[in-house]
């Protein structure tokens, strides 16, 4: 049930994504992540639209770590920071990190051999039910994702598309930091294209965005 990804630029790393529902010990998990006994990034899956969003954040974090340009102290923190549209680190944690009362969590392990946690350990630490990553889309809460971006009010896109704009915005802001990444999900395009709402297709491809 663990989904493993490999980054083309950093093939020595394994990126393992573990998704849990009905989690009862979120506060304890967070504490363990803070003190280092869980060496992973604990995310709120409600804020994740597509695994690509994670991979983009992880790829950028590893790159910045390698060249000594991280904005935070640890790789895990940097991953969470990279997901956020603003430059405020505590805000990034509040919005994209798992919080004490959450009942679901997405754990990212980034392992180049030096990671001190393995997936079994994580699984045994979580009091909850592990589910396949394919269930991620059911846990995405687009209203929450939407709230994070201030630019979104002027758009009336369908749900997934809103996340798409949020992601783009995150890059806009990070731009000032010299290192910059834009995220989008081609998955989103596929979904949009299959929908009947043509004005929405247009934001990704042709035509006018549907402004309200």
């Amino acid at each position: 049930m663990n989904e493993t990804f490999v980054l083309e630029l950093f093939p020595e790393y394994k990126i393992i994504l573990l998704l849990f529902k009905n989690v009862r010990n979120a506060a304890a998990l967070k504490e363990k992540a803070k003190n280092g006994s869980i060496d992973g990034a604990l995310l709120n899956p409600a804020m994740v639209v597509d695994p690509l969003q994670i991979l983009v954040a992880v790829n950028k974090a590893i790159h910045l770590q390698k060249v000594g340009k991280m904005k935070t102290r640890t790789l895990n923190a940097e991953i969470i920071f990279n997901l956020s549209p603003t430059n405020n680190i505590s805000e990034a944690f509040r919005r994209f990190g798992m919080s004490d009362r959450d009942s679901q969590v997405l754990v990212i392990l980034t392992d180049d051999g030096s990671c001190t946690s393995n997936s079994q350990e994580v699984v045994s630490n979580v009091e909850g039910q592990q589910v396949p990553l394919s269930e991620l889309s059911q846990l995405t809460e687009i209203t929450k994702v939407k709230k994070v971006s201030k630019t979104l009010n002027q758009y009336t896109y369908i749900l997934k598309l809103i996340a798409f704009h949020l992601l783009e915005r995150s890059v806009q802001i990070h731009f000032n930091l010299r290192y910059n990444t834009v995220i989008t999900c081609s998955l989103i395009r596929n979904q949009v294209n299959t929908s009947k709402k043509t004005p929405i297709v247009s934001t990704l491809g042709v035509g006018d965005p549907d402004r309200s």
Partner: protein
Amino acid sequence: MPARGLPSSSRPRDNFERSISSSAMCQCPLMTQLHPHLKLHQRILRCWCKDTPAFAMEEEAENCSRLRTRAYVDSLSLMKQGAEARVYRGQFLGKAAIVKERFPKTYRHPILDEKLTHRRTAQEVRSILRCRKAGISAPVVYFVDYVSNCIYLEDIEQSTTVRDYIISIQQAGKDVSQLYGLSSKMGQLLARMHDEDVIHGDLTTSNILLRSPFDELNLVMIDFGLSFISALPEDKGVDLYVLEKAFLSTHPNTEEIFKALLKSYTTASNKSGPVIKKLDEVRLRGRKRSMVG
């Protein structure tokens, strides 16, 4: 400092490059002090005090990063080797991707070169984002590496350049009237881009892609390395003039088709009046210059 290598007139340059390479200050290590527009990055300034251990470590890390990128892009297939950049095609984050690598140019002063290359990379990303935010079609940016000056973009799969498309239609001896639809789509695209104050800076039919299936005429703007943000009708007019020159010289007997482009630009843009006026002025200037020179 006169540029070595290519004659300066044949290379595409932006105002920034023109303004800084025209003065003697390129040779001066402290050019920041001499040129108000140049605020060099600390990193570059530190080139002048290379002995510090912190610098050595940073340099080492960056060299490692460069080697890693080199190894990766060398595993991709080289699509195009241009004067400014190499374009590769392959997989990135599991998606079909294009990697555009701007490489150092030895005919420029190294510091000036680094500054320019960095700037163009940043400019390209900035304008792509601005366009995408406004709903104008441009590739997704997956990752930007300012150490190697590489941009990782969405590959517009099965697309063709407008250039190749027009040529193929003309060569097949097909009815060129179908190109009117294409050119008016181009006019709309440019109008929307200019209405967002994005000046492309290098408009040619090679820098606009046509998505597959081609007959749907979905265009994607690419190659924003020389772009900049400006609301001036003059800048927009010059942008159109550059395209006109390129269009008519690449595609013979397309005067009427290009007129259709300008017509749809005029209809689609809120601010086309002054732009077209400037275009006419620039054309006139161009003609005068060619009569003198």
